């Protein structure tokens, strides 16, 4: 049963990894706006023709 020490340590490392990922995600500004993305994903992709391409 002593293996459980090792397993706990490992799981803690994984958990800390997740915490680091969370902090990184917040720092990158992902959570500053959580309303607009929900609307944005529902837009259709029109053909990306813009004035730029009309040369």
């Amino acid at each position: 049963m002593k293996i459980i020490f090792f397993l706990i340590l490992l799981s803690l490392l994984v958990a800390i990894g997740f915490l680091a990922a969370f902090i990184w995600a917040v720092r990158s500004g992902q959570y500053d706006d959580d309303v607009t993305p929900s609307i944005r994903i529902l837009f259709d992709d029109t053909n990306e023709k813009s004035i730029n391409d009309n040369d």
Partner: protein
Amino acid sequence: MISITPDLKRKPPETDNSCYHCGEDCEETPVVLNEKIFCCQGCKMVYEILSQNDLCQYYELAERPNISLRGQKHTEYAWLEDSVVQSQLIDYQDNKTSKITFFIPAIHCASCIWLLENLFKFNAGIFSSRVNFINKEFAVTFNHHLVSLAELAELLATLGYPPEINLGDTEGSKNRKKDRRIIYQLGVAGFAFGNIMLLSFPEYLGLNEINAIGFQQWFGWINILLALPVLFFSGKDYLRSAWWSIRQKNLNIDVPISIGILTLFGRSIFEIITHAGAGYLDSLAGLVFFLLIGKWFQQITFHHLSFERNYKSYFPISILQADGQSVPIDNLKKGDIIIVKNKELIPADGILLDGSAAIDYSFVTGEEDKIPKEIGEQLYAGGKQIGKAIRIQINKTVSQSYLTQLWNDAAFKKDSTNTTQLLADKIGKYFTWIILLTAFTTLFYWLPIDVGTAVNAFTAVLIIACPCAVALSIPFTFGNAIRILGRAGFYLKNTEVIEFFQTINNVVFDKTGTLTQTQSQPIHFNGLPLDRVEKEKIARLTEQSTHPLSQQILKFLNIQNNQATQIEQFEEVTGKGLEGFVNNDFIKIGSADFTGNPATPNVSVYLKIKNQNRGSFSIPNIYRTGLAKVIDFFKQENQIHLLSGDTEKSRTDLTPYFGEHLHYQQSPMDKLNFIKNLQTGGASVLMIGDGLNDAGALKQSDVGIVIADDTNNFTPACDAILAAAAFGQLPVFIKYMKRCYQLIFVAYGLAFLYNIIGLSFAVQGQLSPVIAAILMPASSVTIVLFGVLSSTFLAWRLRLTDKNHPDKMIKIN
């Protein structure tokens, strides 16, 4: 400086006469294109732009996007060319890219987002753009060599999304950093909470064999490691606030919280080190976690209403100088000559050099009429020029102007929390003393019997006496209430305002713009209806004049500019009327004696065509709908007063409501002093006003409400903003707030119950970590749920709707 109001009539009746772009009724003069009708040239123009760029999907995304461009004129953004201004606004710039974030209040629905994020299709110089819907911010990345900032702003204005640019916004990016801190704290606390609980499982399940191998100590040490960041990072703000409060010989709500946190931590460390037990670190992490959720909830409810604008927001931040250069207002010196254009605010006191000035001082005096000024007369800051551009020579810099004196009055410096103590702090004080009393009583009771149990019971009392209920009920209940009120059109600055409302016994009303509507007075034409030709002629004539009545009649006629109409011998007699030959017909329009008519009540403007009376216009003072009900409601329990900067002409209308408590010709200073006097007499005053001229009074009063037809023109001095359309609901709002206040006491009752149960374990020395771990989160969650659900239920019962909320228009097909 003109911003667009998202049209609050959200769902216009779908008649055949609705404008294809904005949905408003086209009345008698629709503009036609491609078999579609539009209410005005502006709407038609936007449609043309969209269809040329293949963007008609805009119309499929939301039914009638509802941004009416009728009557909207272009705001000039020329001052954005100034490099000093640009450097303050631009987020980033290198050789070929620039980034800027605009504040666009007109963003209100899905199609707005879609259109704005497709802005690159309109101009080759725009790379990409992104909308932040909640903050109504719009970030654009563009090539400043191909498109200038001013052109960008004008493009947005043409499409119906004029950006509103304030000096104050340049400091906005700092707030974003602070908001994130609480998310980090929340994340760490949640992480620790979950993992500590996981490691406390053996303790919960009573697995003693595992203890034999030494798990208990091991897990205990890991728990301590996990708890350290909770204490020093996540809980730091509570500890700091309690410390400051104690130093000021005061006990606020954070003191018992901190006592609880420190005791939990201390006792747990002690138990783990001496192998006496598993400690209470799971409760510690849980307590901090729930408290932070409460704080975070509060923050997200309020943060997109920016209340901290200073007076500079009302002034154009750059002003055009006589030599053609735009300069920020801070740089204005005495002797500088500036040009103030139509509808622009005068930024500093000065002398009129040339141009015909008609200054609207309604911000300063409350007087609605435009005052004509002669060359050489002194003009004051805060006035708006109506008409052609005028040149002014500054004789006082911005900081010394008359308007600023009012703002610097002692009333503004005062902290917004008046002398009435907040409920939470009051209860917090009592709570702390009672807990300490109970704890020490328990200690001294057990001491002679068993020292161990004594210490056990003492710390247990401190731990379990959860002030979290007290700390959480107000943020969640009031926080929810504020959110609900906001949706209904009544925006409170913070939860404290609800508490201030409870003691009000005097209500002071402003007249102009508060009791009366300022926009679109319905004009009535007395006489045989005018035909199209006549309307065109009158319109051409009134177009030449900047007199407010002329402008209103012009708007009322709502007729296109027919270039064929010729005007000769035009003359405007200031303050009296206009006359001229329009297509060889002599038209005279003006006051009674100007047109040679006897004065009749209710008639403002008389019309004579070819020297024959053709009719007249009645332009009434329109009082807001629901005024009678609102006044009656307040009369029942309060003493009401009216303060107006205007002359006495409306006295007869208002005497039935106010009796003798009517005061006219009040300057902003008079209003402020009136309220001060009431307060020294012991009154608690609610002031309802509309803007800058009563700003001092609004701040001085215990609660200040501003009525806004456009909810984006905030007055920093007020505590609440009432959307004009929601004015009639004010009695319901106040009733709602009073009931929510009573709900808090019910919540405290619940908290009391929990504490009794918990204390009964604690004083016996029977408080095990398991019980603590169950009771504390349970009490927190119950209080939160109760607060949120009951306030929502109450709103449903009182039928508070959200029909006035501009953000409601998110529709996706």
